[in-house]
């Protein structure tokens, strides 16, 4: 029987405390993995989302609010942009594509956004990827009250081609605020795993001329999505200067990724708190290994003395204890991956439903390599204190009474 055999035997013998301790390590490991993966993936995903555009032009105000509203379809619009401003930026020589959007209505809480077909026909939401419709669908006709529904909304609201609905006024659902206009679903988007999936798209004029919207809405948009010409390296700086420094009516949020990154910088403290909590949980779990084994040492003193009487060295019995602690930790790490899968699935679903951004929970992350190593090392470290106790076990005293 090898040392490993003795360790496994001991773990089986103390199956309940082994299971409970390993479970606490599993919870800690799963939590740490989840926090870490969500942190890194969310940052990468959110800063990478730009709907295929480089910048957003909007009313004077916060760049972050502008991006959250126009790209992520969160937050309220900071104000309107005059139609002429849209035409000006559209005609700028450095601009490849400018698409206006108008917000202000919802359907049972799902945002309705007015735009032009250019958004779907001329832009790519990711390199080489254009928006596509599910079989049998059509893009909306700007002259008719027709709608293209994002895949996530269609799934949640069970909307399909041919369905009719009435928009509700405002960004928050209030059943008293129903518009009289009736829209017909003419297409459902294929999933793009972007915030576009969470929106009902109608012609720009639809939002502009919706009953109850002010007269100024006819000649204004909420924001303009701007794609700069490739190779025009200075274009962004020039437009930034033009709108943000020289002008004082509009805000040019560019580049979109950096604006979102600033958000993550601002909430970095929260991220650090979460990570700290995860590490503290890991520390508590490791301490539970220490406490569990240490408490069992009194009842195991005789067993260890017998090992010694049979010829086991002090280092052998203490190695058994350290290896036992490391094995409990390793078991916890393995189970922890299962816990991680469950937890990350829930978190991913929540993030997708709230933002439309899809994380890839099973994509490789270096934390998946170093977390098991660190946890097993911590477990082994926790075994050192009881191992010292095992090392010091007096053989003669614990075998039989002295005669």
């Amino acid at each position, binding site marked *: 029987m090898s040392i490993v055999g003795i360790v496994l035997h001991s773990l089986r013998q103390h199956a309940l405390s082994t299971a409970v301790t390993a479970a606490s390590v599993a919870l800690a490991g799963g939590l740490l993995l989840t926090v870490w993966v969500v942190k890194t993936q969310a940052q990468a995903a959110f800063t990478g989302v730009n709907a295929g555009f480089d910048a957003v032009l909007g009313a004077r105000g916060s760049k972050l609010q502008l991006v959250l509203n126009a790209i992520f379809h969160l937050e309220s619009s900071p104000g309107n942009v005059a139609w002429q401003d849209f035409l000006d930026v559209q005609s700028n020589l450095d601009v490849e594509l400018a698409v206006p959007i108008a917000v202000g209505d919802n359907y049972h809480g799902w945002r309705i956004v007015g735009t032009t077909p250019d958004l779907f026909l001329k832009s790519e939401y990711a390199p080489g990827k254009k928006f596509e419709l599910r079989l049998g669908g059509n893009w909306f006709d700007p002259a008719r009250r027709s709608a293209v529904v994002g895949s996530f909304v269609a799934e949640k609201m069970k909307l399909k081609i041919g369905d009719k609905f009435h928009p509700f006024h405002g960004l928050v659902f209030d059943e008293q605020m129903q518009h009289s206009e009736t829209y017909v679903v003419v297409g459902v988007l294929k999933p793009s795993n972007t915030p576009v999936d969470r929106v009902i798209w109608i012609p720009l004029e639809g939002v502009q001329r919706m009953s109850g919207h002010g007269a100024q809405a006819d000649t204004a948009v909420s924001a303009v999505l701007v794609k700069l010409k490739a190779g025009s390296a200075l274009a962004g700086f020039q437009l930034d200067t033009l709108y943000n420094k020289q002008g004082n009516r509009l805000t040019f949020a560019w580049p979109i990724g950096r604006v979102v990154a600033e958000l993550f910088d601002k909430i970095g403290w929260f991220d650090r708190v979460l990570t700290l909590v995860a590490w503290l949980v890991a520390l508590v779990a490791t301490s539970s290994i220490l406490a569990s084994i240490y408490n069992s040492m009194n009842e195991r003193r005789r*067993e260890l003395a017998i090992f010694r009487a049979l010829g*086991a060295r002090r280092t052998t019995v203490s190695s058994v204890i350290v290896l036992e602690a490391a094995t409990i930790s390793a078991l916890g790490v393995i189970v922890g991956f299962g816990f991680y899968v469950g937890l990350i699935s829930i978190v991913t679903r929540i993030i997708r439903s709230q933002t439309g951004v899809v994380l890839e929970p099973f994509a490789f992350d270096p934390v998946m390599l170093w977390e098991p190593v660190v946890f097993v090392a911590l477990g082994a470290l926790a075994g050192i204190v009881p191992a010292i106790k095992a090392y010091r076990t007096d053989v003669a005293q614990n075998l*039989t009474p002295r005669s």
Partner: protein
Amino acid sequence: MKTNDSVLLQIDGLQKSFIAPGGASNRIVNVPEFSLAAGAQLALAGESGSGKTTLLNLIAGILKPDTGRILFNGMAVSEFGESRRDRFRAHNIGYIFQTFNLLQGYTCLENVLLGMSFGQGADHMFAENLLKLVGLEGRLQYRPSQLSTGQQQRVAVARALANRPKLVLADEPTGNLDRKNSVAALALIREACRENGAALLLVSHDSEVLGQFDDTQDFAKINQVATVEVPV
């Protein structure tokens, strides 16, 4: 005492003291001279508390003497460091305890295999043969708690022989057995040692046990603690 001329164990001037709760030094062992031949079977007769177990622990290398020398097969065991004494014990000594000291979480076979793993290495075939020798071939997977006291004693005998020791130390090995089982167990220990070529040093206070040995010595004559004054 000697069955042949080859001396297996030679003890000279061996002393061991313990600190009593009051702080006084209490000498337990004082053996000026003692020897045992290879393959011999010797019983030491002594009362409880006379230092018999301490002497066995010194011979096994579990305890280190304060002074004196223990020569085992030419090796000065008393000079060994702890790690080397552990190794010596694993390879040369089989120990049968009064309370058997079987590992309750392990089966009979595992108890014997465990005895091997710190010494020569696990040998399933030999372990099974030993358990067969002590009449437990049908109880290999039983745990000690599932066995009678007599059967537990037999497992302890098998385990003591697991590493093919040159010397088996038996500390009141029948102390927990009834008369009938006691006689049978003693016969088994002696026979098993003979078959495996191991010497046997047994300590007991039981006159019936001692009566079965041709070679018996009074422990009080070997261990002369009463005549020694120890300054505190």
